[in-house]
């Protein structure tokens, strides 16, 4: 993080609403936050708080919103080449083998065969899937599919990586392994990572800045700084657990906890 606060993402007064059966349904209201260059940021909140919508806005896929959204100092556009988006089900094409899925972004950019090969080989080796390059996504495990999605994003050498609940469909062990792998990749490349999650632990493990959103329409409840992200053994420290409790209290009001509604924050 640069001292003078050079920002990768800056969102001010963002409001988004959907048209559904001629009714306007607000998804996000007056959301403001920023993400410094080269840092990680976790967006957390209940289902339907517009977390995914926020990512769509940042990626430029969603264009009808009001407010100000700057990515790397410029108003967001759909053709920003250095932004990579990984959606919840990784968006792998079932009809393309791992190699071709990872090469897709490069294909679209018209890269030459040789360049493509070098880049795809490098990123697939980084995520440990070069041996699986001839497989179809349906022949991979959930974790391997996720790594393929990450590899496809990395192949484009992004400076901003957006991830929508990247590890939610994985089993606990695979999830921890991939969370660590994501941190390693981030520490090596120092790109900006913005990820959406509904897991408090994941938000604390991965997000240097944690943005808490309230339910429909999504508003910013609080912004929590979490500078120890990436330190070895952070997950086992007392501070980690204290922060977990703190966030849980903020996100899940006491009375809901009594009725058992806290279950999904575990």
């Amino acid at each position, binding site marked *: 993080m640069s001292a003078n606060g050079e920002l990768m993402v800056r969102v001010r007064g963002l409001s988004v609403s959907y048209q559904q059966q001629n009714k306007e349904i607000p998804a996000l209201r007056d959301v403001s936050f920023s993400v410094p260059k080269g840092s990680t940021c976790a967006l957390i909140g209940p289902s339907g708080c517009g977390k995914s919508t926020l990512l*769509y806005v940042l990626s430029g896929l969603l264009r009808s919103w009001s407010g100000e959204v700057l990515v790397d100092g410029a108003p967001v556009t759909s053709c920003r080449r250095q932004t990579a988006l990984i959606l919840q089900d990784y968006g792998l094409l079932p009809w393309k083998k791992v190699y071709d899925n990872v090469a897709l972004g490069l*294909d679209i950019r018209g890269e030459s065969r040789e360049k493509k090969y070098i880049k795809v080989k490098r990123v697939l080796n980084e995520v440990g899937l070069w041996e699986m390059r001839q497989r179809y996504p349906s022949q991979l495990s959930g974790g391997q599919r996720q790594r393929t999605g990450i590899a496809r994003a990395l192949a484009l050498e992004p400076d901003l990586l957006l991830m929508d609940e990247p590890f939610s469909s994985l089993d606990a062990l695979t999830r921890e392994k991939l969370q660590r792998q994501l941190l390693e990749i981030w520490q090596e490349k120092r790109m900006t990572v913005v990820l959406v999650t509904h897991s408090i632990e994941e938000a604390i493990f991965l997000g240097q800045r944690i943005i808490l959103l309230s339910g429909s329409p999504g508003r910013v409840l609080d912004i929590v700084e979490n500078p120890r992200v990436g330190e070895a053994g952070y997950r086992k420290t007392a501070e980690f657990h204290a922060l977990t409790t703190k966030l849980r209290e903020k996100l899940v009001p006491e009375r809901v906890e009594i009725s058992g509604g806290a279950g999904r924050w575990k």
Partner: protein
Amino acid sequence: MNGRKWASALYVTFSVTFLLLGWELLSLAVNNPALPGPLPALTAFFRELAGGLWGHFLVSSYRVVISLVISLVLAVPCGMVMGREEKVDRLVAPLIYIIYPVPKIVFLPVLMVLLGIQDASKITLITLVVFFQILVPIRDAARGINPDLVNSVKSLGARRRDIYLHVVWPAVLPEVLTSLRIASGTAIAVLFFSETISSQEGLGYYLLDAWSRAVYTEMFAGIIAMSLLGFIIYTVLEHLERWACPWKYV
């Protein structure tokens, strides 16, 4: 793998035997020259093949294959665009909706007046039928593509052309081949009908000619040839699907 091949060969032998046996029993029960048993029918089939039947078979094959190809070339782009471009769909869908249930076969007399009694009217009629039968499933398949898939590819910088090339086309391809395979049966039925009306060649003509001469074994030779045509097209399309959509079979 080899064991499974043997098993499937065994099953095929069983079903063919069952079919021939049923046919033989039925012809014995009916006991009428209009329903000869498999042996005289097959004998006539192979004898006739060396005669005129082969030529009729080729003519019919040509008509039905050309029709399938034309339907494909027309219906695939139309279906993909209708499924993906809402504005186009809103404009064209009502039209399709009105024409779809019309039995296209009733246009044969009109087509014969306009296009003559040669290949053109028959091919047009079959195309008309098959086009709609594959257009609608392709449109629905294109429309049903998971939006996350499209968005993911868009986020990689894809333009409209890339979306069609990398997402829409491969997504509808299995549906294209399946619907074509199902439509091939209808195509042959329409072919038969069109060939029985003021026609001089083709399996439909051959069959009806044998019927009018009351040579029932030859009529059955025609039926066998027609069934074979259907079977070949069906099998080829099935293999094409396996070849063109390998991800479906892993």
